[in-house]
């Protein structure tokens, strides 16, 4: 619904939303690409992806001071910026009538590309291109952005989960140690006790272990 109501032109002439039968996307290694992202890891992941994809002229900007001046100096064909970046508004200035602008730059929002835009915004990235650049040449870059941004988000989730698991394991180890000492039992028995209690109380082992650790601190 949102695509149709947003882009009435689509509803009028019933053009397809997806671009399957359009011209094949063309890879263009000569394109100058600038990545604006304060997150150095994500920027590196995206830059690597673009280089692997054959784009040789990729520059990263991680420092936001004088952003516009840096962009004008680099004179890119494509600008990729993450949506968590407040400096996105700075780029809005590029579209203004101004003598300072060397080349007019237009945002990659053609009214026939609603699906591509939604995918990009959903992944947390936005793209700007120089005016007149054919969108078939941009499509592979945008697709790559979406997949790399999504991959980064998954990586972060995984990292968080790993860190949580690690800290849970530490807590369980501490709880085991406390039980072994207090009840004079072996490690396997201590773990079995934690597990049994967790099952009886319908809790996670880590939660029971945390309770043991907290109680031991209180009773010190």
């Amino acid at each position, binding site marked *: *619904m*949102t*695509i149709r*109501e*947003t*882009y*009435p032109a689509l509803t009028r002439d019933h053009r397809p939303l997806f671009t399957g039968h359009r011209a094949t996307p063309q890879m263009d290694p000569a394109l100058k690409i600038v990545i604006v992202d304060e997150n150095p890891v994500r920027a590196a992941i995206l830059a690597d992806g673009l280089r692997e994809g054959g784009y040789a002229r990729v520059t990263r900007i991680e420092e*936001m*001071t*004088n952003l*516009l001046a840096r962009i004008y100096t680099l004179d890119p064909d494509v600008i990729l910026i993450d*949506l*968590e*970046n*407040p*400096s*996105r*508004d*700075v*780029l*809005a*200035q590029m*579209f*203004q*009538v*101004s*003598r*300072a602008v060397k080349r007019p730059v237009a*945002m990659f*929002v*053609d*009214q026939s590309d*609603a699906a591509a*835009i*939604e995918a990009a*915004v*959903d992944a947390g990235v*936005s793209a700007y291109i120089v005016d007149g650049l054919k969108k078939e040449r941009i499509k592979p870059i945008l697709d790559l952005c979406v997949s790399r941004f999504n991959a980064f988000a998954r990586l972060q989730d995984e990292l968080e989960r790993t860190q949580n698991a690690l800290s849970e394991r530490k807590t369980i180890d501490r709880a085991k140690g406390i039980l072994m000492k207090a009840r004079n039992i072996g490690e396997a028995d201590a773990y079995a006790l934690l597990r049994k209690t967790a099952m009886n109380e319908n809790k996670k082992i880590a939660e029971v272990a945390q309770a043991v650790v907290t109680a031991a601190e209180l009773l010190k």
Partner: protein
Amino acid sequence: MSADRLRIGFIPLADAAALIVAVDKGFAAQEGLAIDLVREVSWSNVRDKLNIGLFDAAHLLAPVAIASSLGIGHVKVPLLAPFVLNCNGNAITVSPALYEALAASADGTLHDPNVSARALAGVVRRRRERGDAPLVFGMTFPFSAHNYLLRFWMAAGGVDPDEDVALVVLPPPYMVDSLSSRQVDGFCVGAPWNSVAVELGVGTILHFGCDVVARAPEKVLAVRAAWAANRADTLARLLRAISSAVAFINDPAHLDEVAMLLAAPRHLDVSAALIRATLEGRLRTKLGGSPRTAPDYLVLGRDDAARPEPIDAAWLYAQMVRWRQTALSADALATAKACFRPDLYDAALGSGVKPDRAADAFGAFAGPAFDADDISGYVAAFKAP
């Protein structure tokens, strides 16, 4: 009955108050609405997420709603403003060094924007004679009252904002840093950033926005035109919830509570005292100075300010034309005026059909009276800087 679920985007600023209060004080729930307020970091994000339907409604710069409907500077998506969240709320802040230079160049009191604008022209001239780089001023977005207020003010003193100084977009949270690191010499921004600069001793508030234009439309509640048509009942309930929030906010008995609520980390995440001062229009203009009081510093919907008047949209459109963001056309003017929808406001709030305001109530400190029927004459009447 399950509540209607809405996602509404906002930027953490004092003028998002009505949305925050509508949700947190239960006015939305009373109307059967469950609202997720989503905090965003840029106006571009708010606009894009509203445009593609990730948001149902948004706290938006009034000129952005018009620019989007006209397709200026970005993809064309018709938006409507059925509620004006506030008038005013901005201030022009300059570095202590520029303030000193303006004072030395002033032919009267700097409180008078005519005097300060002429003083600015003098400073600009002397800098050029010395071969110094042009002064740089920050503002928040090309389509914003901040941009138009700065330009209006300096042009009145004979400064050409495109030739004599540099105007740059800066995200509000970076304004103060940029002023203290001398990357900009001044800026126009909303609350609380002017006060933050003052309290850190890196800026002096030269003018409240209302010194330049006494009553300037600032942020609106924006929705897609198609959404408004499909969800007319939901929209009416949303407007009632926001209107109740506005009444709550404007009751002086609730000042502390509203300030605390806005100050919360999940909302603006700044000191409640600063927000309270903003709501009261009682701001220190320089470090250690005594506060200056202006009841119209920030008008959150009181005195019918929430009713979206087409003449307000026409005035904003005229600023776009004046600064060559777009060319004047009768069709575009009609589209701009149709963004502001007093009929939706009147219908939702049951306030009966009222006549739209026709006369200039903007109270600009300089320039011709505004006539929505003669924008070409209005723009021409500003003497060429």
